[in-house]
């Protein structure tokens, strides 16, 4: 990804001599991957070209692009698709901003750093199922502690059903999504920042660089590569997952938080339209691959230019 790792060609060629047999080492890993990843995934992709529905002894026939044609005009799906893109991008960006901020704080010489460090890992360590249940309880109107705090401090918004209200449900779910996504970002960025040699920072201080300049010209370039990897990974994870949303709102209210992974899940398991649901998965996967391709290419170009 970065230009510094490019080693001279000659060495890469010399390396091949003894590495020729290395492919054999990949076999043990590829057998289970083939059986339980390649095969099911190919089956799922194949299903997207059929009219398969749930049930035993149902005749399955190949219908070509039939599902995709139907999907094109399915306005409900595209509404959900839009929600999914907004969800994945906003959760990732919010978690990135919050995680970056926390990493910068953790890099300072402050009191209670040990406590902060442990706390920053809490969302990661809690079983996801519990995370969803806990936030659900925390946000309950009137009996939930968050609403009680709002009422006690007489803040505007007291008495709101955060997860049930038309206007607040989606932003609230995004905030919780960011809460969950933060630790991995914080920890990785912190590690990158701590890899900056102290002499470099000291030299810049002597040269009269202020905090903003140090941030702009030392910190940002250092974390660029890891940041683009984190953004890419998070968008993938968020776009294809629905567990959190499922437990928090089940897609409601009024479909405001109906992410496409949940849409496809319902299509398959609630209505039994396996083929149609699979075509949604294919469309989602293609979209993500395209989006990431563009994003990674852009961030790579930026890397080279610098």
């Amino acid at each position, binding site marked *: *990804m*970065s230009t510094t*790792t490019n080693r001279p060609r000659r*060495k*890469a060629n010399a*390396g*091949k001599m*003894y*590495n020729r*047999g*290395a*492919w*054999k*080492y*990949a076999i043990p*890993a590829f057998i*289970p*991957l083939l*059986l339980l990843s*390649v095969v*099911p*995934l190919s*089956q*799922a992709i194949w299903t997207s070209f059929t009219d398969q529905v749930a049930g035993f002894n149902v005749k399955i026939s190949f219908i070509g692009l039939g599902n995709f044609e139907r999907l094109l005009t399915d306005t409900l799906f595209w509404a959900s698709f839009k929600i999914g893109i907004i969800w994945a991008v906003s959760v990732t960006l919010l978690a990135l901003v919050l995680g970056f*901020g926390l990493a910068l*704080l953790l890099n*300072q010489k*402050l009191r*209670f750093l040990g406590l*902060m460090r442990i*706390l920053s890992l*809490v969302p*990661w360590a*809690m*079983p996801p*199922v*519990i995370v969803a*249940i*806990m*936030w659900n309880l*925390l946000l309950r109107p009137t009996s939930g*502690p968050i609403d009680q705090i709002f009422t006690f401090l007489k803040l505007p918004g007291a008495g709101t059903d955060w997860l049930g209200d038309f206007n607040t449900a989606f932003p609230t779910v995004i905030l919780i999504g960011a*809460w969950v996504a933060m630790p991995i970002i914080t*920890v990785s960025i*912190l*590690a990158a920042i701590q890899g900056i040699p102290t002499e470099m920072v000291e030299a810049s201080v002597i040269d009269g660089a202020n905090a903003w300049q140090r941030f702009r010209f030392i910190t940002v370039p250092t974390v660029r*590569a*890891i940041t683009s*990897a*984190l953004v890419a990974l998070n968008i993938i994870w968020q776009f*294809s997952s629905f567990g959190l949303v499922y437990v928090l709102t089940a897609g409601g209210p009024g479909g405001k938080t109906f992410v496409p*992974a*949940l849409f*496809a*899940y319902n299509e*398959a398991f609630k209505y039994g339209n396996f083929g149609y649901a699979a075509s949604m*998965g294919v469309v989602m*996967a293609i979209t993500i*691959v395209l989006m*990431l391709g563009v994003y990674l290419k852009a961030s790579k170009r930026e890397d080279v230019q610098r």
Partner: protein
Amino acid sequence: MNQVKNHARAATKKRKYYLIPTYFLVICYVIFLGFPFLWMFTISLKSPFELLQLDQSFLPKTIYLQNYVDIIEKRGLINSAKNSLIIAVCTTVLTTIFAVPAGYAIARLRKVFSGAATGWILISQVFPVSLIIIPLFMAVRRVGLLDSIWGLVLVYLVAALPFALWMLKGYVAAIPMDLEEAGAMDGATSFQILRNIVFPLLLPGIVATALFTFLNSWNEFFFALVLIQSPESETLPLTLARFMGSEGQVLLGPLAAGAFLATIPSLVVFGFMQKKLASGLLAGAVKG
């Protein structure tokens, strides 16, 4: 010299002012990150009677440890914790055994091969898991491992491998090839090179990958929900989720107690290993 000192003094003075907003931010983060966890802990100490009351105080009025006794003795938490532990350990060991040589191969082989492997890793991550579950369910049933913790081990292995390969590939790429070449000159076979030269250098990366795998399988919910039916094979997240109750009745106290107990091991492990974990991700991302 004097000038430098003055400069430094001015800097410390300035520093003090900016400490106020900094600590304000620290407090915000502490509340945001820690409050749900702390609240969960206080609930685990409240009696059912207290939890039923509308107007609750944040701290429990009396410490009620029965919740912990309840979840450990009556709700099969020990058994599901044992299952989860077996599953997580086996998954981690198998993933490491499979992923280390394969990660090495991907990193050191020709572009075509490693490109195809990386492409597959990406695709397997983007396709919604909820749709793979049907063919996966069929596949697990075919090998007769439905409702068995060994079926879950197999599924988790496959789920963990792509990310593990991606991380390890980064670590291998960071090892200078000259070392391996020197080994080859001395007549070492490629397996000897892998075992005696690459493996020791790769150890920090292996630890990081193993931790990721362990914690992901320890916490995983969705596959377990679909593939496990009998209470004897239940994993920890499944047991905890059951407390939400199909009747909508939440056994809040025991649930919080169980959740607290399930979080502590991960938190301790993460706390000790966070540097290693982070450098693992870094290696995968930057040297990829």
